[in-house]
Protein backbone atom coordinates (compact mmCIF):
# COMPACT_ATOMS: atom_id res chain seq x y z
CA UNK A 1 0.00 0.00 0.00
CA UNK A 2 1.21 3.51 -0.79
CA UNK A 3 1.96 5.66 2.21
CA UNK A 4 -1.41 7.24 2.98
CA UNK A 5 0.29 10.26 4.56
CA UNK A 6 1.72 11.35 1.21
CA UNK A 7 -1.76 11.96 -0.22
CA UNK A 8 -3.26 15.40 -0.57
CA UNK A 9 -6.53 16.03 1.25
CA UNK A 10 -8.40 15.87 -2.07
CA UNK A 11 -6.79 12.53 -2.97
CA UNK A 12 -7.53 11.18 0.50
CA UNK A 13 -11.19 12.24 0.31
CA UNK A 14 -11.51 10.56 -3.09
CA UNK A 15 -9.89 7.39 -1.72
CA UNK A 16 -12.17 7.37 1.31
CA UNK A 17 -15.27 7.94 -0.82
CA UNK A 18 -14.14 5.16 -3.20
CA UNK A 19 -13.56 2.80 -0.21
CA UNK A 20 -9.95 2.23 -1.26
CA UNK A 21 -8.99 2.64 2.40
CA UNK A 22 -10.85 3.43 5.59
CA UNK A 23 -10.73 6.46 7.84
CA UNK A 24 -9.27 4.25 10.58
CA UNK A 25 -6.45 3.20 8.21
CA UNK A 26 -5.52 6.70 7.11
CA UNK A 27 -5.86 7.98 10.67
CA UNK A 28 -3.53 5.25 11.96
CA UNK A 29 -1.01 6.13 9.23
CA UNK A 30 -0.99 9.75 10.37
CA UNK A 31 -0.78 8.84 14.07
CA UNK A 32 2.30 6.77 13.22
CA UNK A 33 3.81 9.70 11.29
CA UNK A 34 3.18 11.98 14.28
CA UNK A 35 4.80 9.50 16.67
CA UNK A 36 7.84 9.26 14.39
CA UNK A 37 8.24 13.07 14.16
CA UNK A 38 8.13 14.10 17.83
CA UNK A 39 11.55 15.68 17.36
CA UNK A 40 9.83 18.45 15.40
CA UNK A 41 7.73 19.36 18.48
CA UNK A 42 4.78 20.21 16.22
CA UNK A 43 2.14 18.79 18.55
CA UNK A 44 1.55 19.93 22.13
CA UNK A 45 -1.07 17.22 22.61
CA UNK A 46 -1.70 14.07 20.60
CA UNK A 47 -5.23 12.65 20.84
CA UNK A 48 -4.92 9.16 19.29
CA UNK A 49 -7.86 7.59 21.17
CA UNK A 50 -10.19 10.40 20.19
CA UNK A 51 -8.87 10.27 16.60
CA UNK A 52 -9.57 6.55 16.25
CA UNK A 53 -13.03 6.86 17.82
CA UNK A 54 -13.88 9.68 15.41
CA UNK A 55 -12.45 7.68 12.48
CA UNK A 56 -14.61 4.66 13.35
CA UNK A 57 -17.68 6.87 13.40
CA UNK A 58 -16.63 8.30 10.00
CA UNK A 59 -16.28 4.81 8.54
CA UNK A 60 -19.77 3.97 9.78
CA UNK A 61 -21.18 7.11 8.12
CA UNK A 62 -19.33 6.34 4.86
CA UNK A 63 -20.75 2.78 4.94
CA UNK A 64 -24.22 4.20 5.53
CA UNK A 65 -23.85 6.57 2.55
CA UNK A 66 -24.03 9.54 4.90
CA UNK A 67 -20.60 11.09 4.37
CA UNK A 68 -19.85 14.80 4.84
CA UNK A 69 -17.49 16.83 2.65
CA UNK A 70 -14.46 16.06 4.88
CA UNK A 71 -15.59 12.61 6.00
CA UNK A 72 -12.77 10.59 7.49
CA UNK A 73 -9.94 13.09 6.88
CA UNK A 74 -7.49 13.43 9.80
CA UNK A 75 -6.49 17.03 10.61
CA UNK A 76 -4.41 18.91 13.19
CA UNK A 77 -5.82 21.79 15.24
CA UNK A 78 -3.81 24.82 16.34
CA UNK A 79 -3.91 25.00 20.13
CA UNK A 80 -5.56 28.44 19.96
CA UNK A 81 -8.88 26.73 19.14
CA UNK A 82 -10.90 25.57 22.14
CA UNK A 83 -11.80 21.91 21.82
CA UNK A 84 -14.47 20.43 24.05
CA UNK A 85 -12.94 18.16 26.69
CA UNK A 86 -9.43 18.46 25.19
CA UNK A 87 -6.77 20.63 26.84
CA UNK A 88 -6.33 23.97 25.06
CA UNK A 89 -3.39 26.17 26.08
CA UNK A 90 -2.78 28.84 23.41
CA UNK A 91 0.89 27.91 23.86
CA UNK A 92 0.89 29.59 27.28
CA UNK A 93 1.60 28.49 30.82
CA UNK A 94 -1.14 30.75 32.11
CA UNK A 95 -3.91 28.55 30.72
CA UNK A 96 -2.34 25.60 32.53
CA UNK A 97 -4.45 22.50 32.00
CA UNK A 98 -7.51 24.41 30.82
CA UNK A 99 -10.08 21.99 29.42
CA UNK A 100 -12.77 23.90 27.53
CA UNK A 101 -16.35 22.80 28.17
CA UNK A 102 -17.23 24.01 24.65
CA UNK A 103 -16.05 23.70 21.07
CA UNK A 104 -14.90 26.58 18.84
CA UNK A 105 -17.27 27.20 15.93
CA UNK A 106 -14.54 26.61 13.33
CA UNK A 107 -13.61 23.18 14.72
CA UNK A 108 -17.28 22.31 15.28
CA UNK A 109 -17.82 23.03 11.55
CA UNK A 110 -14.96 20.66 10.66
CA UNK A 111 -16.37 17.83 12.84
CA UNK A 112 -19.85 18.47 11.39
CA UNK A 113 -18.34 17.86 7.94
CA UNK A 114 -16.67 14.61 9.05
CA UNK A 115 -13.07 15.57 9.87
CA UNK A 116 -11.01 13.64 12.44
CA UNK A 117 -8.87 15.38 15.09
CA UNK A 118 -5.31 14.06 15.48
CA UNK A 119 -4.31 16.49 18.22
CA UNK A 120 -3.40 20.05 19.13
CA UNK A 121 -0.59 21.94 17.39
CA UNK A 122 2.20 24.02 18.86
CA UNK A 123 2.25 27.79 18.35
CA UNK A 124 3.77 31.01 19.61
CA UNK A 125 2.30 31.97 22.98
CA UNK A 126 -1.11 33.58 22.36
CA UNK A 127 -0.10 33.70 18.66
CA UNK A 128 2.44 36.44 19.46
CA UNK A 129 5.55 35.65 17.48
CA UNK A 130 6.92 34.89 14.02
CA UNK A 131 9.25 31.98 14.82
CA UNK A 132 7.35 29.70 17.24
CA UNK A 133 10.03 30.42 19.82
CA UNK A 134 7.67 32.12 22.28
CA UNK A 135 5.71 28.89 22.90
CA UNK A 136 5.68 27.66 26.49
CA UNK A 137 6.23 24.20 24.97
CA UNK A 138 9.44 25.17 23.17
CA UNK A 139 9.94 25.93 19.49
CA UNK A 140 8.74 23.84 16.58
CA UNK A 141 11.53 22.65 14.28
CA UNK A 142 11.05 23.27 10.56
CA UNK A 143 11.07 19.97 8.61
CA UNK A 144 13.19 21.79 5.99
CA UNK A 145 16.94 22.20 6.34
CA UNK A 146 19.39 24.26 4.29
CA UNK A 147 21.27 22.17 1.79
CA UNK A 148 24.38 20.68 3.40
CA UNK A 149 23.50 21.98 6.88
CA UNK A 150 22.14 20.21 9.93
CA UNK A 151 21.09 23.41 11.67
CA UNK A 152 17.54 23.56 13.11
CA UNK A 153 15.42 26.18 11.35
CA UNK A 154 12.26 27.96 12.45
CA UNK A 155 8.99 27.05 10.70
CA UNK A 156 7.83 30.64 11.22
CA UNK A 157 4.96 31.62 13.43
CA UNK A 158 2.68 31.85 15.06
CA UNK A 159 1.12 28.82 13.35
CA UNK A 160 4.48 27.02 13.20
CA UNK A 161 3.12 23.70 14.49
CA UNK A 162 0.35 23.72 11.89
CA UNK A 163 2.77 24.50 9.04
CA UNK A 164 5.40 21.96 10.13
CA UNK A 165 2.77 19.23 10.59
CA UNK A 166 1.44 19.79 7.06
CA UNK A 167 4.92 20.00 5.50
CA UNK A 168 6.03 16.80 7.29
CA UNK A 169 2.93 14.81 6.22
CA UNK A 170 1.76 14.40 9.83
CA UNK A 171 -1.71 15.75 8.97
CA UNK A 172 -3.73 16.15 5.76
CA UNK A 173 -4.35 19.78 6.70
CA UNK A 174 -4.51 22.01 9.76
CA UNK A 175 -6.36 24.93 11.25
CA UNK A 176 -4.35 28.07 11.92
CA UNK A 177 -4.92 31.73 12.75
CA UNK A 178 -3.50 34.93 11.30
CA UNK A 179 -3.35 38.27 13.14
CA UNK A 180 -0.39 39.82 11.30
CA UNK A 181 0.82 37.00 9.05
CA UNK A 182 0.69 33.95 11.32
CA UNK A 183 -0.75 31.64 8.64
CA UNK A 184 0.98 32.99 5.52
CA UNK A 185 4.54 33.49 6.81
CA UNK A 186 4.79 29.89 8.17
CA UNK A 187 3.28 28.65 4.90
CA UNK A 188 6.02 30.47 2.98
CA UNK A 189 8.76 29.10 5.27
CA UNK A 190 7.55 25.47 5.02
CA UNK A 191 6.48 25.13 1.36
CA UNK A 192 2.78 24.86 2.24
CA UNK A 193 -0.36 26.77 1.26
CA UNK A 194 -1.90 29.13 3.83
CA UNK A 195 -5.05 31.25 3.60
CA UNK A 196 -6.14 34.19 5.71
CA UNK A 197 -9.72 34.80 4.61
CA UNK A 198 -11.64 38.09 4.75
CA UNK A 199 -12.12 39.29 8.32
CA UNK A 200 -15.47 37.84 9.41
CA UNK A 201 -15.47 34.81 7.07
CA UNK A 202 -14.64 32.47 9.96
CA UNK A 203 -16.18 32.79 13.37
CA UNK A 204 -13.80 33.80 16.15
CA UNK A 205 -16.02 32.15 18.77
CA UNK A 206 -13.97 29.75 20.86
CA UNK A 207 -10.66 30.96 19.40
CA UNK A 208 -8.50 32.35 22.19
CA UNK A 209 -8.39 36.10 21.52
CA UNK A 210 -5.18 38.00 20.74
CA UNK A 211 -6.22 41.15 18.81
CA UNK A 212 -9.91 40.83 18.06
CA UNK A 213 -10.11 43.31 15.17
CA UNK A 214 -7.30 41.48 13.33
CA UNK A 215 -7.59 37.77 14.29
CA UNK A 216 -8.89 35.43 11.58
CA UNK A 217 -8.84 31.65 11.33
CA UNK A 218 -7.84 29.89 8.13
CA UNK A 219 -6.33 26.66 6.80
CA UNK A 220 -2.79 25.43 6.19
CA UNK A 221 -2.75 22.76 3.51
CA UNK A 222 -0.66 20.89 0.96
CA UNK A 223 -2.34 22.38 -2.13
CA UNK A 224 -4.49 25.35 -3.11
CA UNK A 225 -7.42 23.01 -3.73
CA UNK A 226 -7.01 21.45 -0.27
CA UNK A 227 -6.99 24.93 1.27
CA UNK A 228 -10.19 25.78 -0.63
CA UNK A 229 -11.89 22.60 0.61
CA UNK A 230 -10.91 23.31 4.22
CA UNK A 231 -11.87 26.99 4.11
CA UNK A 232 -15.32 26.15 2.74
CA UNK A 233 -15.95 23.97 5.81
CA UNK A 234 -14.42 26.38 8.33
CA UNK A 235 -16.34 29.45 7.09
CA UNK A 236 -19.89 30.53 7.70
CA UNK A 237 -21.99 32.98 9.67
CA UNK A 238 -22.11 32.42 13.42
CA UNK A 239 -24.46 34.45 15.63
CA UNK A 240 -22.07 33.85 18.53
CA UNK A 241 -19.47 36.16 16.90
CA UNK A 242 -21.00 39.58 16.18
CA UNK A 243 -18.24 40.28 13.63
CA UNK A 244 -18.94 37.07 11.72
CA UNK A 245 -20.34 38.14 8.35
CA UNK A 246 -23.88 37.01 7.43
CA UNK A 247 -22.95 36.12 3.85
CA UNK A 248 -23.07 33.02 1.68
CA UNK A 249 -19.96 30.83 1.55
CA UNK A 250 -19.10 30.07 -2.08
CA UNK A 251 -17.76 26.60 -2.86
CA UNK A 252 -14.18 27.84 -3.13
CA UNK A 253 -13.05 24.54 -4.66
CA UNK A 254 -14.70 25.46 -7.97
CA UNK A 255 -12.56 28.61 -8.19
CA UNK A 256 -9.35 26.56 -8.31
CA UNK A 257 -8.56 25.74 -11.94
CA UNK A 258 -10.81 28.45 -13.31
CA UNK A 259 -9.39 30.67 -16.07
CA UNK A 260 -7.92 33.99 -15.00
CA UNK A 261 -7.78 35.37 -18.53
CA UNK A 262 -8.50 39.09 -18.60
CA UNK A 263 -8.02 39.67 -14.87
CA UNK A 264 -5.99 42.71 -13.88
CA UNK A 265 -3.39 42.07 -11.20
CA UNK A 266 -1.44 44.79 -9.39
CA UNK A 267 2.20 44.75 -8.29
CA UNK A 268 2.52 47.17 -5.35
CA UNK A 269 5.75 49.07 -5.85
CA UNK A 270 6.16 49.79 -2.12
CA UNK A 271 6.68 46.06 -1.46
CA UNK A 272 10.13 46.27 -3.03
CA UNK A 273 12.04 46.51 0.26
CA UNK A 274 15.70 47.39 0.61
CA UNK A 275 17.58 45.11 0.56
CA UNK A 276 15.40 42.64 -1.34
CA UNK A 277 16.89 39.12 -1.33
CA UNK A 278 17.58 38.27 -5.01
CA UNK A 279 15.79 34.89 -4.83
CA UNK A 280 12.61 36.59 -3.58
CA UNK A 281 12.82 39.32 -6.23
CA UNK A 282 13.35 36.62 -8.90
CA UNK A 283 10.36 34.58 -7.72
CA UNK A 284 8.15 37.67 -7.68
CA UNK A 285 9.16 38.45 -11.27
CA UNK A 286 8.47 34.86 -12.27
CA UNK A 287 5.07 35.00 -10.56
CA UNK A 288 4.18 38.04 -12.65
CA UNK A 289 5.25 36.19 -15.81
CA UNK A 290 3.15 33.15 -14.86
CA UNK A 291 0.08 35.35 -14.50
CA UNK A 292 0.77 37.09 -17.82
CA UNK A 293 1.15 33.68 -19.50
CA UNK A 294 -2.29 32.79 -18.13
CA UNK A 295 -3.80 35.87 -19.74
CA UNK A 296 -3.71 38.37 -16.86
CA UNK A 297 -2.85 41.99 -17.35
CA UNK A 298 -0.27 42.95 -14.73
CA UNK A 299 0.19 46.59 -13.78
CA UNK A 300 2.15 48.47 -11.14
CA UNK A 301 0.06 50.00 -8.35
CA UNK A 302 0.92 52.20 -5.39
CA UNK A 303 0.04 51.56 -1.74
CA UNK A 304 1.78 54.64 -0.33
CA UNK A 305 1.22 53.93 3.38
CA UNK A 306 2.67 50.41 3.35
CA UNK A 307 5.70 51.29 5.45
CA UNK A 308 3.48 52.51 8.28
CA UNK A 309 1.55 49.24 8.55
CA UNK A 310 3.90 47.48 10.95
CA UNK A 311 4.29 50.40 13.38
CA UNK A 312 0.49 50.89 13.37
CA UNK A 313 0.03 47.17 13.95
CA UNK A 314 2.42 47.27 16.92
CA UNK A 315 0.15 49.79 18.60
CA UNK A 316 -3.22 48.30 17.66
CA UNK A 317 -2.44 44.62 18.28
CA UNK A 318 -0.78 45.14 21.71
CA UNK A 319 -3.57 47.54 22.74
CA UNK A 320 -6.22 44.94 21.96
CA UNK A 321 -4.08 42.20 23.50
CA UNK A 322 -3.60 44.09 26.76
CA UNK A 323 -7.38 44.32 27.03
CA UNK A 324 -8.12 40.74 25.92
CA UNK A 325 -5.48 39.21 28.16
CA UNK A 326 -6.77 41.04 31.24
CA UNK A 327 -9.05 38.03 31.72
CA UNK A 328 -6.14 35.86 32.90
CA UNK A 329 -6.42 36.77 36.54
CA UNK A 330 -5.96 33.38 38.20
CA UNK A 331 -9.54 33.26 39.50
CA UNK A 332 -11.70 31.37 37.00
CA UNK A 333 -9.36 29.08 35.08
CA UNK A 334 -5.71 28.39 34.44
CA UNK A 335 -2.71 29.16 36.58
CA UNK A 336 -3.02 30.76 40.00
CA UNK A 337 -0.02 31.79 42.06
CA UNK A 338 -0.89 32.55 45.68
CA UNK A 339 -0.13 35.84 47.40
CA UNK A 340 -1.04 37.78 50.53
CA UNK A 341 -3.52 40.08 48.79
CA UNK A 342 -5.75 39.98 45.74
CA UNK A 343 -3.38 42.32 43.86
CA UNK A 344 -0.45 40.12 44.72
CA UNK A 345 -2.25 37.04 43.34
CA UNK A 346 -2.97 38.90 40.08
CA UNK A 347 0.57 40.27 39.78
CA UNK A 348 2.36 36.98 40.56
CA UNK A 349 0.02 34.83 38.46
CA UNK A 350 0.58 37.04 35.43
CA UNK A 351 4.31 37.33 36.08
CA UNK A 352 4.73 33.54 36.13
CA UNK A 353 2.06 32.68 33.60
CA UNK A 354 3.04 34.91 30.68
CA UNK A 355 6.28 34.62 28.71
CA UNK A 356 8.56 37.59 27.92
CA UNK A 357 7.10 38.50 24.49
CA UNK A 358 3.52 38.41 25.77
CA UNK A 359 4.47 40.60 28.75
CA UNK A 360 6.27 43.01 26.44
CA UNK A 361 3.18 43.38 24.28
CA UNK A 362 0.83 43.75 27.24
CA UNK A 363 3.08 46.50 28.60
CA UNK A 364 3.19 48.31 25.24
CA UNK A 365 -0.58 47.98 24.91
CA UNK A 366 -1.18 49.24 28.43
CA UNK A 367 1.18 52.15 27.83
CA UNK A 368 -0.39 53.30 24.55
CA UNK A 369 -3.87 53.13 26.06
CA UNK A 370 -2.92 54.90 29.30
CA UNK A 371 -4.02 58.42 30.13
CA UNK A 372 -2.11 61.04 28.17
CA UNK A 373 -0.91 58.66 25.45
CA UNK A 374 -4.18 57.36 24.02
CA UNK A 375 -4.55 60.10 21.41
CA UNK A 376 -0.86 60.28 20.51
CA UNK A 377 -0.48 56.55 19.93
CA UNK A 378 -3.69 54.51 19.77
CA UNK A 379 -5.99 57.00 18.06
CA UNK A 380 -3.27 57.99 15.59
CA UNK A 381 -2.66 54.31 14.77
CA UNK A 382 -6.37 53.81 14.05
CA UNK A 383 -6.27 56.75 11.66
CA UNK A 384 -3.17 55.40 9.92
CA UNK A 385 -4.99 52.07 9.69
CA UNK A 386 -7.75 53.85 7.77
CA UNK A 387 -5.21 55.34 5.36
CA UNK A 388 -3.70 51.89 4.76
CA UNK A 389 -7.15 50.43 4.07
CA UNK A 390 -7.95 53.38 1.75
CA UNK A 391 -4.77 52.62 -0.24
CA UNK A 392 -6.16 49.16 -0.99
CA UNK A 393 -9.62 50.50 -1.83
CA UNK A 394 -8.06 52.83 -4.40
CA UNK A 395 -5.86 50.08 -5.85
CA UNK A 396 -8.85 47.75 -6.21
CA UNK A 397 -10.59 50.37 -8.34
CA UNK A 398 -8.18 49.42 -11.14
CA UNK A 399 -7.07 45.85 -10.33
CA UNK A 400 -8.80 42.61 -9.28
CA UNK A 401 -6.03 41.32 -7.03
CA UNK A 402 -2.42 41.94 -5.99
CA UNK A 403 0.67 39.75 -6.18
CA UNK A 404 3.55 40.13 -3.68
CA UNK A 405 6.14 38.00 -1.93
CA UNK A 406 4.85 36.46 1.33
CA UNK A 407 7.85 36.92 3.60
CA UNK A 408 11.10 38.90 3.40
CA UNK A 409 13.27 35.79 3.91
CA UNK A 410 13.33 32.02 3.74
CA UNK A 411 13.36 29.99 6.98
CA UNK A 412 15.91 31.34 9.47
CA UNK A 413 17.78 29.57 12.24
CA UNK A 414 16.14 29.02 15.62
CA UNK A 415 17.56 31.67 17.95
CA UNK A 416 18.64 33.99 15.12
CA UNK A 417 16.44 37.00 15.80
CA UNK A 418 14.94 36.22 19.20
CA UNK A 419 17.06 38.89 20.87
CA UNK A 420 15.75 41.76 18.74
CA UNK A 421 11.98 42.27 18.90
CA UNK A 422 11.83 44.79 16.06
CA UNK A 423 13.83 42.50 13.73
CA UNK A 424 11.36 39.73 14.49
CA UNK A 425 8.40 42.05 13.83
CA UNK A 426 9.75 42.80 10.32
CA UNK A 427 8.92 39.22 9.27
CA UNK A 428 5.34 40.39 8.80
CA UNK A 429 6.17 43.34 6.55
CA UNK A 430 4.33 41.92 3.49
CA UNK A 431 1.49 40.24 5.38
CA UNK A 432 0.36 42.66 8.09
CA UNK A 433 -1.24 45.23 5.74
CA UNK A 434 -3.90 42.70 4.82
CA UNK A 435 -4.93 42.14 8.45
CA UNK A 436 -5.26 45.89 9.01
CA UNK A 437 -7.48 46.19 5.91
CA UNK A 438 -9.47 42.99 6.61
CA UNK A 439 -8.68 41.52 3.17
CA UNK A 440 -8.26 37.87 2.10
CA UNK A 441 -4.78 36.62 1.11
CA UNK A 442 -3.10 33.33 0.31
CA UNK A 443 0.52 32.15 0.28
CA UNK A 444 1.50 29.61 -2.39
CA UNK A 445 4.93 27.93 -2.54
CA UNK A 446 6.73 29.16 -5.65
CA UNK A 447 10.35 28.07 -5.63
CA UNK A 448 13.35 26.97 -3.59
CA UNK A 449 16.12 29.47 -2.88
CA UNK A 450 19.83 28.80 -3.34
CA UNK A 451 19.96 26.94 -0.04
CA UNK A 452 17.07 24.70 -1.08
CA UNK A 453 14.51 26.40 1.19
CA UNK A 454 10.96 27.18 0.06
CA UNK A 455 9.69 30.68 -0.74
CA UNK A 456 6.06 31.74 -1.09
CA UNK A 457 4.11 34.14 -3.26
CA UNK A 458 1.14 36.02 -1.84
CA UNK A 459 -2.09 36.86 -3.66
CA UNK A 460 -4.29 39.49 -2.01
CA UNK A 461 -7.96 39.70 -2.98
CA UNK A 462 -10.79 42.18 -2.54
CA UNK A 463 -12.99 41.96 0.54
CA UNK A 464 -15.00 38.69 0.33
CA UNK A 465 -13.49 37.85 -3.07
CA UNK A 466 -11.60 34.73 -2.03
CA UNK A 467 -12.83 33.16 -5.28
CA UNK A 468 -10.62 35.31 -7.53
CA UNK A 469 -7.75 34.86 -5.05
CA UNK A 470 -8.10 31.06 -5.25
CA UNK A 471 -8.23 31.12 -9.08
CA UNK A 472 -5.01 33.14 -9.29
CA UNK A 473 -3.36 30.98 -6.62
CA UNK A 474 -4.31 27.89 -8.62
CA UNK A 475 -2.61 29.34 -11.71
CA UNK A 476 0.56 30.17 -9.75
CA UNK A 477 0.62 26.69 -8.19
CA UNK A 478 0.28 25.01 -11.56
CA UNK A 479 2.93 27.18 -13.22
CA UNK A 480 5.37 26.88 -10.33
CA UNK A 481 4.95 23.09 -10.31
CA UNK A 482 6.42 23.12 -6.82
CA UNK A 483 6.88 19.44 -5.92
CA UNK A 484 9.77 19.64 -3.45
CA UNK A 485 9.30 17.99 -0.08
CA UNK A 486 11.61 18.11 2.93
CA UNK A 487 13.85 15.08 3.52
CA UNK A 488 12.36 13.09 6.39
CA UNK A 489 15.59 13.29 8.43
CA UNK A 490 13.64 12.68 11.65
CA UNK A 491 12.91 9.10 10.54
CA UNK A 492 16.00 7.09 11.34
Amino acid at each position, binding site marked *: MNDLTSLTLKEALDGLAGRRFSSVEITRAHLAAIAAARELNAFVLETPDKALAMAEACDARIAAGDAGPLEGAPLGIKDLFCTNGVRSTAGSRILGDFIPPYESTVTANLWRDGAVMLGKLNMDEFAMGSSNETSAFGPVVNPWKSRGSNRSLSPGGSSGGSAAAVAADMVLGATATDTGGSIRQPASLTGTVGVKPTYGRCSRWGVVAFASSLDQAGPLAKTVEDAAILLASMSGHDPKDS*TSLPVEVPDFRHSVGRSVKGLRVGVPKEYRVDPMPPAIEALWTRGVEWLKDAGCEVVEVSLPHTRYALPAY*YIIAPAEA*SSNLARYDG*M*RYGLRVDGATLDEVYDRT*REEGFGPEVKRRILIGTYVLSAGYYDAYYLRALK*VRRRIADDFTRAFETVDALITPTAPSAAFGLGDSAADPVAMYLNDIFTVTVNLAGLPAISVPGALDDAGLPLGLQVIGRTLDESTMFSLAGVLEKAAAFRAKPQKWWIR
Partner: protein
Amino acid sequence: MAIDADTVRRVAKLAHIRQPQDRLEPLAAELSEILAWIEQLNEVDVTEVEPMTSAVAFPLPMREDIVTDGGDAGVVLANAPLARDGFFVVPKVVE
Protein backbone atom coordinates in the same frame (compact mmCIF):
# COMPACT_ATOMS: atom_id res chain seq x y z
CA MET B 1 9.44 59.06 23.45
CA ALA B 2 11.86 57.22 25.74
CA ILE B 3 10.42 55.19 28.60
CA ASP B 4 12.22 55.14 31.95
CA ALA B 5 12.20 52.55 34.70
CA ASP B 6 9.58 54.48 36.68
CA THR B 7 7.20 54.42 33.72
CA VAL B 8 7.74 50.68 33.32
CA ARG B 9 6.92 50.20 37.01
CA ARG B 10 3.74 52.26 36.67
CA VAL B 11 2.60 50.50 33.47
CA ALA B 12 3.40 47.06 34.93
CA LYS B 13 1.27 47.92 37.94
CA LEU B 14 -1.60 48.96 35.64
CA ALA B 15 -1.18 45.70 33.70
CA HIS B 16 -0.98 43.66 36.93
CA ILE B 17 2.31 42.02 35.99
CA ARG B 18 4.93 41.90 38.75
CA GLN B 19 8.31 42.96 37.42
CA PRO B 20 11.41 42.35 39.52
CA GLN B 21 13.46 45.50 40.18
CA ASP B 22 16.35 44.29 38.03
CA ARG B 23 14.07 43.91 34.98
CA LEU B 24 12.84 47.53 34.99
CA GLU B 25 15.88 49.10 33.27
CA PRO B 26 16.26 46.41 30.57
CA LEU B 27 12.51 46.57 29.86
CA ALA B 28 12.64 50.36 29.66
CA ALA B 29 15.37 50.04 27.02
CA GLU B 30 13.44 47.40 25.04
CA LEU B 31 10.18 49.32 25.10
CA SER B 32 11.92 52.59 24.21
CA GLU B 33 13.44 50.95 21.17
CA ILE B 34 10.05 49.65 20.03
CA LEU B 35 8.37 53.01 20.63
CA ALA B 36 11.15 54.86 18.79
CA TRP B 37 10.41 52.66 15.78
CA ILE B 38 6.68 53.36 16.15
CA GLU B 39 7.32 57.13 16.21
CA GLN B 40 7.49 57.13 12.39
CA LEU B 41 3.68 57.21 12.43
CA ASN B 42 4.02 60.91 13.19
CA GLU B 43 5.05 61.42 9.55
CA VAL B 44 1.55 60.47 8.34
CA ASP B 45 -0.93 63.26 7.74
CA VAL B 46 -4.09 62.13 9.54
CA THR B 47 -6.04 65.39 9.58
CA GLU B 48 -9.73 64.71 9.03
CA VAL B 49 -9.16 60.95 8.89
CA GLU B 50 -11.76 58.93 10.78
CA PRO B 51 -10.21 56.31 13.07
CA MET B 52 -10.80 52.79 11.70
CA THR B 53 -12.37 50.71 14.42
CA SER B 54 -13.49 47.64 12.51
CA ALA B 55 -11.76 45.60 9.84
CA VAL B 56 -14.73 45.28 7.49
CA ALA B 57 -17.41 47.93 6.93
CA PHE B 58 -20.45 45.99 8.05
CA PRO B 59 -23.11 47.06 10.55
CA LEU B 60 -23.06 45.20 13.84
CA PRO B 61 -26.20 43.11 14.23
CA MET B 62 -28.74 43.77 16.98
CA ARG B 63 -30.51 40.97 18.80
CA GLU B 64 -33.22 40.54 21.39
CA ASP B 65 -31.95 41.10 24.93
CA ILE B 66 -32.82 37.62 26.12
CA VAL B 67 -30.99 34.87 27.98
CA THR B 68 -29.86 32.19 25.53
CA ASP B 69 -27.48 30.14 27.64
CA GLY B 70 -26.31 29.50 31.18
CA GLY B 71 -27.64 27.96 34.36
CA ASP B 72 -24.80 25.48 34.60
CA ALA B 73 -22.53 26.56 37.46
CA GLY B 74 -20.77 23.21 37.50
CA VAL B 75 -19.49 23.66 33.96
CA VAL B 76 -18.49 27.26 34.62
CA LEU B 77 -16.51 26.27 37.72
CA ALA B 78 -14.94 23.14 36.24
CA ASN B 79 -11.62 24.86 35.46
CA ALA B 80 -11.45 27.08 38.55
CA PRO B 81 -8.21 26.89 40.55
CA LEU B 82 -10.38 27.10 43.68
CA ALA B 83 -14.16 26.69 43.95
CA ARG B 84 -16.56 25.91 46.78
CA ASP B 85 -20.34 25.53 47.06
CA GLY B 86 -20.95 26.74 43.52
CA PHE B 87 -18.70 29.80 43.83
CA PHE B 88 -15.22 30.86 42.75
CA VAL B 89 -12.96 31.27 45.78
CA VAL B 90 -10.91 34.48 45.66
CA PRO B 91 -8.55 36.11 48.17
CA LYS B 92 -10.23 38.23 50.84
CA VAL B 93 -10.82 41.74 49.49
CA VAL B 94 -12.98 43.32 52.24
CA GLU B 95 -11.98 43.24 55.90
